[in-house]
């Protein structure tokens, strides 16, 4: 399983390449009023809308850190589109599956957490309504 590994707010995250449409930078994000923290806004890319999620805020429950990088990983599956904010793209990694369980990946001594678009979608849907304080 080919996985794209990236870094966000000190977290090393991996996502299967199959769901990745494109990695872009310098894309304008339209903020959504009353959106909760972690839900950064919307990206319109080549005729499609992507909801931008900041997993650093959602997972770590911390305030968003302003990153120098404007990298966004655009995911597309089942007519749904999500863009993940990334600080750095580590690279493509191949994972071997053992009994349908992907092997554990590490980078610089830290475990790479493998995420799925559905998991991110679920996390987004579970976010409280409105701009609550973290």
């Amino acid at each position, binding site marked *: 399983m080919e996985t794209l590994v990236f870094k966000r707010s000190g977290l090393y995250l991996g996502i299967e*390449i199959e769901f*990745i449409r*494109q*990695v872009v*930078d310098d894309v304008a994000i339209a903020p959504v009023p009353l959106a909760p923290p972690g839900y950064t806004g919307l990206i319109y890319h080549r005729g499609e809308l992507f909801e931008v999620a900041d997993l650093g805020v959602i997972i770590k429950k911390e305030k968003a850190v302003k990153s120098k990088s404007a*990298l966004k990983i655009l995911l597309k599956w089942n007519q749904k589109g999500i863009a993940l904010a990334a600080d750095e*793209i580590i690279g493509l990694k191949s994972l071997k599956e053992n009994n349908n369980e992907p092997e554990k990946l590490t980078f610089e001594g830290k475990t790479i957490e493998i995420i799925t678009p559905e998991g991110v979608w679920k996390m987004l849907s579970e976010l409280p309504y409105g701009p609550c304080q973290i």
Partner: protein
Amino acid sequence: MGRTSIKNKLILSFLAFLLILLSVVGFVNFWSKDFYLAQAISAAMALASGIIFGSMFSESIVKRLQRLSNVATEISGGDLSKEISMDSHDEIRDLEEVFAKMVNDLRVILSEMNQVATQVQQTNKHLAGLIGEVLSKSHEIDEAASTIARGSEDQTMIVQKTAIIVDKGLERMDEMVKKSAQTVSKIAEAQSKSEAGEKSARETLKYLDGVLKQMAEYAEPVHRLSREMEKIKTVVSVMDELSQKTDLLSLNASIEATRAGESGKGFALVANEIRAISENSRQSTKEIGRIVENVFKNKIAAIESLEKSEESIAKGRETIRSIVSTFEDTLSGVRDIFSEVGEVEKLTIEQVNQMKGIQGHFHELSVLARENFVLTQKTTIGTKGQEEDLKRIVNEIKTLETLSDKMLKTQKRFKLPGN
């Protein structure tokens, strides 16, 4: 009434007598017939008339002379109050008038003598008072002279002491003048040293200006390099951006190739190569960026060092400028001090000269005080001699008083009208 002399009177009287006698003789002769009888009677009558006439005439003259003699006797007795009556206008009248005039003159003389004696007495009294006062004043003068003599003695002592003090003061002032001259010499030396210091400081300032100018010239290439480095940084930034874009592009290509499966493996290889090149390019760019950054940092450090050096030199320049200013001030102060000390020296010399003049005056004063002392001694002697003289004058006045008393007594012997 006209004046008639005795002779004329006598002739006229005789003639009148003769006429009367002839008339009587004629009358007798007329009435008598006897010639002889008539002649006898006439002769008797003529003799009787002659005796009577002569007696009467001589009586009138003797009486007047007797009266004059009486008056003269009384006058010789001191009675000048008697008046001489003057009836006729003959030679006796002349005698009476002369005598009366003499009496009057005597009266005047006596009166004047009286006045003179009285005045002499009064003058004697006044003179005695004046002499008393003069004696008193003479005593006072004597005392004053003694006081002045003592004062002169003291004055001489004081003047001599003062002269000694002035001599000492002069010696000190001479020392002061010498020291002042030494001070002037030292100040002149300090002035020349300050001038040399100021000159050195100015030269240093000039040299520092040159150094600053040279530093500005040296800094110019560094600034130019800095500007070039800025351009390189921009280029490196563009290169970095390009490598990032290439990296992203190769990443997306790799993703697409992976998604394409077996058919995309070749493309994946190309994409990976491109990504590797991009990565290399990025690494190179980063290295260049790092080098440029280091150069930039070094340049900044160099510029900072230059700026610090410039600042230090500017500070040093300011310090030296301040030193120059201080030197100028010091020089100005030294010049002022030199001028003032010169003035002080001049004044001190003038003062010394004045002191020498004062010393001379003191010597003169000492001489004068001594002379004064001698003169006061002489004055004392003179006043004592004056006292003796005055005593003699007093004796003379007493004699004069005795004489005036005598004169008054003599004058009192005469009786004047009204007394």
